[in-house]
């Protein structure tokens, strides 16, 4: 039964268990035509398992997978309209580059002449024509990556699945390859599903980022949304540059919520909530500054150290209670605080991002601020 044929991939309530360990717990996802989707999360969160279920390399315990509107949940990998790039490229050591790249077409029973022609085309397109008769052992990391890509793309799949594809490359090479792959995806117009634990990759490449944790999707959306409006404490702490605060709802004022916790009392924009219920919110490090008169939200801090990331100067500040906060300042501006000095920081109410209501009852706000971020 065809549903919404413009969806390249639809996952419905996917579930996968290994013994007593749940790897994927009710994951649902929709991927439109030609979208670049990144599955992001710490190791063990279920992103790779989800990818492998889409590929057909794992059998889910529950849920449905539809590719191009067609149900493929019970289909083996060789019958799905996908191709996959593996972390260590998984090149066949005994085949030449030309033979490997043509492998997928051979499996589709294409005539030899056509296979030869297409292989030559694809090798030229990926600029590896000179390597046609070499074996993988004699290739560099970057060359191997292109061969793996050519091998996958030649079958013109509807979806390309990538399992941490640039993790095996030198640091210097990764940037270049990332840009090339993004351009490739735009040119070819097929959907890419890219699994990574590296935020920089995910936010640079993805049109749509899916943050996963403990077998579930915590939040999905555009990189902007996730970076600037995290909806759970986990997402806030996982993406760089957020300061998280926990507390309880103490009332409402001027249309804003007052949330009081160990760090102090703050005004946060958001819909009304039950008084006394647990709540959390986050503020981006670059939205904080020296406390000004207009700032309703303030915290007294002492500077622990100053770090430098390229053009950003980051102050690591310790507040009462011992938790650390981050304050990012553009490097061109003059330094404001030195190590060991005390100060007061503040920010506007609208810079606060309220998190969704937590599923389980949160611990009392006076508990140790285990969730507050240590600088990434």
């Amino acid at each position, binding site marked *: 039964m065809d549903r919404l044929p413009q969806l390249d991939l639809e996952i419905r309530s996917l579930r996968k268990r290994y013994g007593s360990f749940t790897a994927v717990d009710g994951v649902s996802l929709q991927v439109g035509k030609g979208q670049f989707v990144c599955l992001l999360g710490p190791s063990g969160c279920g992103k790779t398992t989800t990818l492998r279920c889409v590929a057909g390399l794992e*059998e889910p315990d529950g849920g449905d997978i539809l590719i*191009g509107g067609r149900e493929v949940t*019970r*289909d*083996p990998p060789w*019958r799905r*309209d996908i191709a996959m790039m593996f972390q260590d490229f998984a090149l066949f050591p005994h085949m030449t580059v030309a033979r490997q790249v043509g492998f997928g077409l051979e499996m*589709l029973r294409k005539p030899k002449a056509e296979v030869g022609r297409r292989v030559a085309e694809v090798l030229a397109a990926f600029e590896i024509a000179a390597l046609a008769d070499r074996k993988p052992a004699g290739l560099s990391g970057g060359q191997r990556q292109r061969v793996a890509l050519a091998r996958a793309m030649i*079958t*013109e*799949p*509807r979806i390309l699945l990538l399992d941490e594809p640039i993790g095996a490359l030198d640091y210097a090479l990764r940037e270049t390859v990332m840009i090339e792959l993004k351009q490739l995806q735009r040119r*070819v*117009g*097929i959907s890419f599903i890219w699994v990574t634990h590296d935020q920089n990759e995910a936010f640079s490449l993805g049109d749509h980022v899916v943050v996963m944790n403990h077998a579930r999707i915590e939040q999905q959306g555009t990189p902007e949304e996730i970076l600037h409006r995290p909806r759970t404490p986990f997402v806030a702490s996982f993406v760089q540059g957020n300061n998280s605060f926990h507390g309880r709802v103490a009332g409402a004022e001027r249309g804003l919520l007052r949330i009081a916790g160990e760090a102090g009392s703050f005004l946060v924009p958001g819909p009304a909530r039950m008084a006394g219920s647990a709540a959390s919110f986050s503020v981006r490090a670059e939205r904080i500054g020296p406390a000004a008169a207009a700032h309703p939200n303030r915290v007294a801090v002492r500077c622990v150290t100053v770090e430098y990331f390229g053009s950003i100067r980051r102050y690591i500040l310790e507040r009462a209670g011992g938790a650390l906060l981050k304050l990012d300042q553009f490097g061109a501006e003059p330094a404001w605080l030195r190590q060991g000095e005390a100060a007061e920081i503040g920010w506007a109410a609208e810079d606060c991002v309220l998190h969704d209501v937590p599923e389980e009852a949160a611990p009392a706000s006076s508990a140790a601020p285990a969730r507050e971020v240590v600088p990434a």
Partner: protein
Amino acid sequence: MMDGTTYASGRARAARRPLLDHRARSRLTAWVLGTLTVGFLLYQWLPILTLSLLSFSGPTGGTTFPMNGVSLHWYRELWDASIMNDFKPPLGRSFLLAIACAVTTCLLSVASAQAMRGRFRGHGLFFYLILLGIMAPGLLVGFGFALVCRILGIETAWNTTAFLVHVSWTLPFGFLAMLAIFNRFDPKLEEAALTLGASRWTAFRRITLPIVLPGVIGSLLFGFSLSYDEFARSMFTTGADITLPLAVMAQLDRQLTPELYAIGAATTVTSLLAILACTFALWGLRRAQRR
């Protein structure tokens, strides 16, 4: 580009679905191969088990079923030496020879493997020279050695010539075991010892040896068990005082009696115990090292 031709052909293939789906076929393959494997294991073990069983047959039992009672008769026969076939001296010789082999193999293996680490000129040839011991069959080596002895007028005896040839067979095994262990050995441990003022010999004795002890024990094990069971090389080089495998074969030539089963069962059990003992020793060593 997404012109649909690839997809359509994929669909066409799906239309002619096979009789069993891929999961069922995978399971079927596993079952077939599994049955084959288990069948082979039974096939391998059955003669030994039967032989062990028959070794307990009664005094009137023959070399095959029925057993005519269960007894230790044949073991007792084995123990009380009769004039015809006394297996105790050959057993003693085999045992002593095996011990000598084990110790010599161990020493030579460690020395040779350590020499290999030194990457001296010709170490490639050296490697193949030692490997010759495995590649050259016992028949040829034994025969050749007997020829040499005959021409040079040397008398063959179990404790001289047989010993020499046995070690030539067991040494490659111990050597390979030590090489494998040294491959996984981290030379930085020795470097650390040297920078702390130890001499090369001290570093080897106090640091390296304890860590490569599994290989050392392995070479002892190889030396003992391979020499104890060795038949072909012994045949040509032991002279008049024969070892246990030769005595067994001689008896077999004369007449098959259940005493031989008793020997077979006893030897198998001893080998098993020796292997298990060494495995436990190795396992215990590894646990001690990890702490």
